């Protein structure tokens, strides 16, 4: 039973790190649909770095690559005023192509020496993820910086007039969001999977994206969502570790996380929740900031 929980928590870790990064840049008004792509890039960079240099460099390099492409997205969407969805899609499709070309030649497992240390089978990254979430929660709700970030996402014109540097704030949040997505990807490929295969993210990045929407942009709710979906994902992969003899065939179970996402999305779109959801949503999300 415990190994199953440990693995679920690893999936939750991936979701959590990537999603909290997206939450941060969405709070500043920038939507990044390329989060799956950033995860892919981080996964590839991290895996290759692990092959040559080891695990810690893998995470660092994953973060750097993620941050780099986060910067690209920031330049495109914040400075060049390109439509944020187009920019995100462009990065995702680029990642699909580039990562295939770059990393598929390394397909296969990591060598024996490169293995994550584990505490009762749980990777320390889980605790790092929790710390990241708490830090971001603290920044957003208790610090002046967090207030500035939120104001930029709600009404950048009002923020500008109060002396907040809108462009700089959005850049910062988008780059950090990218770094976290890259880190999540590196963790996915080096620790959770321990091997490389073609496009290993398998839709997890999109679930992380959806989680941000469910969470009403609150890190603590996001934590709950990530834990839930981590469990669902791992259950879909290896249900027999909990309950031997599940009648449904494996592929049907693998659909579960995606069906669950649609169900939750449908529920929060109903009239009752729409109000609350619309009020929590950063008002300027997705809109380019064009000074008068």
């Amino acid at each position, binding site marked *: 039973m415990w190994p199953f929980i440990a693995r679920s928590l690893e999936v939750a870790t991936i979701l959590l790190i990537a999603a909290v990064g997206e939450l941060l840049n969405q709070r500043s008004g920038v939507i990044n649909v390329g989060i799956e792509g950033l995860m892919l890039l981080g996964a590839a960079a991290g895996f290759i770095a692990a092959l040559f240099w080891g695990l810690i460099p893998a995470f660092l390099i994953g973060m750097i690559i993620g941050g780099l492409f986060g910067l690209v997205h920031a330049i495109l969407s914040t400075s060049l005023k390109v439509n944020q969805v187009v920019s995100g899609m462009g990065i995702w499709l680029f990642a699909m192509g580039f990562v295939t070309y770059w990393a598929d030649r390394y397909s296969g497992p990591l060598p024996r020496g490169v293995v994550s240390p584990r505490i009762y089978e749980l990777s320390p990254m889980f605790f790092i993820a929790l710390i990241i979430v708490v830090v971001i929660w603290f920044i957003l709700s208790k610090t002046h910086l967090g*207030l500035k970030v939120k*104001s930029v996402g*709600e*009404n950048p014109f*009002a*923020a*500008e007039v109060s*002396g*907040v540097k809108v462009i700089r704030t959005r850049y910062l949040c988008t780059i950090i969001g990218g770094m976290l997505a890259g880190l999540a990807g590196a963790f996915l490929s080096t620790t959770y999977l321990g091997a490389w295969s073609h496009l290993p993210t398998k839709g997890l990045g999109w679930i992380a994206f959806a989680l941000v929407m469910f969470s009403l942009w609150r890190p603590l709710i996001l934590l709950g969502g990530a834990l839930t979906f981590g469990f669902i994902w791992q259950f879909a992969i290896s249900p027999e570790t909990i309950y031997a003899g599940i009648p449904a065939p494996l592929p049907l179970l693998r659909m579960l996380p995606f069906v669950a996402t649609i169900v939750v999305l449908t529920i929060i779109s109903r009239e009752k929740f729409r109000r609350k959801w619309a*009020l929590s949503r950063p008002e300027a999300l997705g809109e380019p900031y064009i000074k008068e």
Partner: protein
Amino acid sequence: MHREVGRGEAILEVRGLTKIYPGGVVALDNVDLEFKSGEIHAILGENGAGKTTLMNILFGVLQPDRGEIYVHGRKVRFRSPLDAINMGIGMVHQQRKLIPAHTVLENIILGHPEAGKILDFKKVRRDIEELCRKYGFKIDLDARVWQLSAGEQQLVEILRALYRGAKILILDEPTSVLTPLETEAFLTSLKSMSRQEIALVPFVTHKLPEVFAISDRVTILRRGKVVKRIETKDATMKALAEHMVGKEVLFVLSKPKVSIGGEILKVENLSAMNDKGLLALKNVSFTIREGEIFGIAGVSGNGQQELAEVLAGLRRVETGRIIFMGRDITNASVLERLKMGIGYIPSERLGVGVIGGFSLAENILMSLYFDKEFVNRGLLNYKKIREYAEKVISEFEVVAPSINTKAAYLSGGNLQRLVLSRVIPKTSKLLIANLPTTGLDIAATEYVRKRLLECKEKGMGVLLISDDLDEVLQISDKIAPIYEGRFVSILQAEEAQKEVVGAMMTGAYSER
């Protein structure tokens, strides 16, 4: 930077301020002004007189082309609003620059250098409460801004500026969206701030009386130049108005004599909610007849937008009925209403009235696509469409190289002509004109009004929604001042006196 200032000492001075926009438009021409501590110095001027440009320069949003700015006698350059704020200049915007989702306290503290890295709300709260006591302000610091009224939101902007150490407050049309009660409160707060040595500079076009009454002196701008400086005690309202518009005679349109016909529209006890879920239109009833222009006079935000949308079919009716040509159309769709001959000129031109990326012809098509005459077995008959488009575009004098020009290249007046050319020829019975002349220059405004009168001559019924009282008085046959979602009264044009209607639409006659 925030040293103690003696009463009457000049805080802010500008000399020779000039701003010329690309294209040669001279927005400000050699303007000299000074603002002394503790005085209320009002700047008056019509639309286009240069007020907005001047405000933006004083607050660091724009740079002047020539001229200097002096703060406490020292020459300064504002590269951004932050520089102006740090010099003690605060601004209260007409369109609030606040964060609706945040609390009053959070809005005030945002960006404040002394707020610290970790927000210490306790200290800020104490400071703000002290400020409120000092000036006699009353506000709930923990309320979210979207829950506040217009007057309260304005107070938040004032507090924010004062907490940043503003010694001079620039106020952009401060009373334009306030109710009489709120206006009274605001004027009282102006007086108390002035007693505390804050210089106050209201920029106004409308609602002269109140601001005039309270100011110490007045400067009038016209066409970018200072035309008159006067101490308030030496001025009269009439003289001020004359200086604002110059000695030119305002055109007076002759209303054609048209016999009023049968009933076209009958509205009974209509109520509707706004986007926030609050009742915006409350129990409105009226009729419009053939050949009649029904004008709704009021400050924007009193339910006019909701009324227009309900009549056009864009918004749900909560209670009441709409009867058009004898038929109950309360729940009819937008398309059904269009086919019935109801035309709607929306308040938003680019993006709603016309689509910028479409050509002129494709825009005209917006009102034709459901007409069988232009459709052949599901396919559009472009030949007929082009012929029709050329006809109406020349009829409505839309100036453009060809009908294939994209609408985004047209200027404001031309855009509105395009909207009219699309809507009016396809309107047979009822035309709803929502703020049709807002932001247009004199020539375009006159053209629009001429067209509306023509519709009247053709026997159409016209519903005119306008925040320009003169306009409503000039061309309407019946006038309904609206206030907080209710019609205060319905008057015949001949009986309507400007002062009375003006008072009605600002709530002076409503029961509380």
